[in-house]
């Protein structure tokens, strides 16, 4: 108990004094995750809208597949990306293994199905409401997608934030493809695992507090967004 308390005090001390390692690792986490989530949103959000307004033969199958991809075990994603990027793999020439780019690629693969699926759900609900009007006005498919994406922007932001929450706390894949290299690929989750292993509880706890703070902020933002969504004001 005393150890815990002492560790906590030391952790808070590290945070208050903006410990260099702590700041560096936190910023790298943010950089990797923000980049990955940004790209995943760029792909996933419009794809969800497209899926909502398009009727094609294997639509149901595509949706089922998308939902299944949401449950991809990150460790397996990491393994596959590792194989693809490793020297003997098909993308080995790019020398990306154990770089932040490799971690971003893995996170994109993990998070895009989540964002696309959440996007599809809210776009589908909105399409149900808008359907008759947008058909009546003879909007093109692009106009329909744009209208849904714009009018549903609040729930889409929620989808993006959910993806962010998932990515920032992810460890399995980025440990494998990033390698947890100091000053290069070390991020919050991998650093915590390492510091715990080393018995350096103050730094581990400090990193943990930063991670939790980010998660809480994200959840708060989602909560506020979904409230304004329900009340229809923004």
């Amino acid at each position, binding site marked *: 108990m005393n150890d815990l308390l002492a560790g906590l005090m030391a952790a808070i001390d590290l945070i208050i004094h903006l410990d260099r390692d702590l700041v560096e690792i936190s910023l790298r986490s943010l950089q990797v995750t923000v980049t990955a989530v940004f790209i995943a949103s760029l792909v996933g959000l419009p794809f969800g809208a497209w899926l909502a307004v398009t009727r094609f033969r294997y639509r149901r199958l595509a949706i089922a597949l998308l939902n299944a991809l949401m449950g991809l075990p990150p460790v397996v994603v990491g393994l596959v990306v590792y194989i693809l990027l490793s020297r003997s793999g098909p993308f080995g020439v790019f020398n990306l293994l154990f770089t932040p780019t490799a971690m971003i690629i893995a996170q994109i693969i993990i998070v895009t199905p989540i964002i696309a699926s959440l996007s599809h759900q809210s776009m589908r609900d909105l399409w149900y409401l808008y359907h008759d*009007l947008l058909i009546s006005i003879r909007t093109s498919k692009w106009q329909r997608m744009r209208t849904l994406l714009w009018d549903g922007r609040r729930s889409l932001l929620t989808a993006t934030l959910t993806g962010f929450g998932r990515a920032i706390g992810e460890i399995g894949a980025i440990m494998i493809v990033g390698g947890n290299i100091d000053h290069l690929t070390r991020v919050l989750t991998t650093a915590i695992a390492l510091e715990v292993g080393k018995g350096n509880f103050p730094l581990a706890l400090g990193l943990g507090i930063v991670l939790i703070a980010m998660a809480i902020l994200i959840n708060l933002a989602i909560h506020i967004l979904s409230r304004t969504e329900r009340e229809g004001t923004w």
Partner: protein
Amino acid sequence: MVDSILPVVLDQAIVRKEGRQIVGPLNLTFGREGGCSILVGPNGAGKTTLLRLMHGLERASEGRVTWSARKDTVYARQSFVFQAPVVLRRSCLENIAYPLFVRGVQREKARAEAAKWIEDIGLAEVAHNDAHVLSGGEKQKLAMARALITKPDVLFLDEPTANLDGASTQEIERLIASAVQSGTRIVMATHDFGQARRLATDILFMYRGRIHEHAAADIFFGGPATDEAAKFMKGDLLI
């Protein structure tokens, strides 16, 4: 407007849903004479389906619906107001301007045009508020303005006042009357006979998917020719 997409001709048109024939066969013409044609008839008669069929929201299972212009102009020059108003999640002004945006009208021009309409329907004060907070009557006025902003040749209205109070109904009827004045042909379903009397130039009595009677309004209200229409007007249940 020199040209018109009218007349529209229904030729042996039938709509089937789940194997059941719910509308038709119908042979029907709406010409260029202007005015307000009103569909009356009991629930389930097929009024909504007929309006949607003409507007191209339903496909004819058999027969044809033929407009007097090319397909791309035909649908650009007609509008539809649904029984439950569809409101976009944006401001009132943007709701009204939306069809102009879709037609590629410049944003500022579209907004200026919408501003005139929002003035006309008395919602100028809430122009920039989210349209979702409007009352049912205000939403339907918004839908009317959005339908009329494109100056359509034909406006389809599906029981536009079914869920509204007296005051809102009056305002909607004013918009309908002024649309007729400016040359828009109205085809509308209602089950409010008072409304039909006030607005109709001609009445189509619909029952079990067929038009049983089509007559000038004064003639119809002077005494329907068919038993079913007479019973329906007296308030007897038709099954």
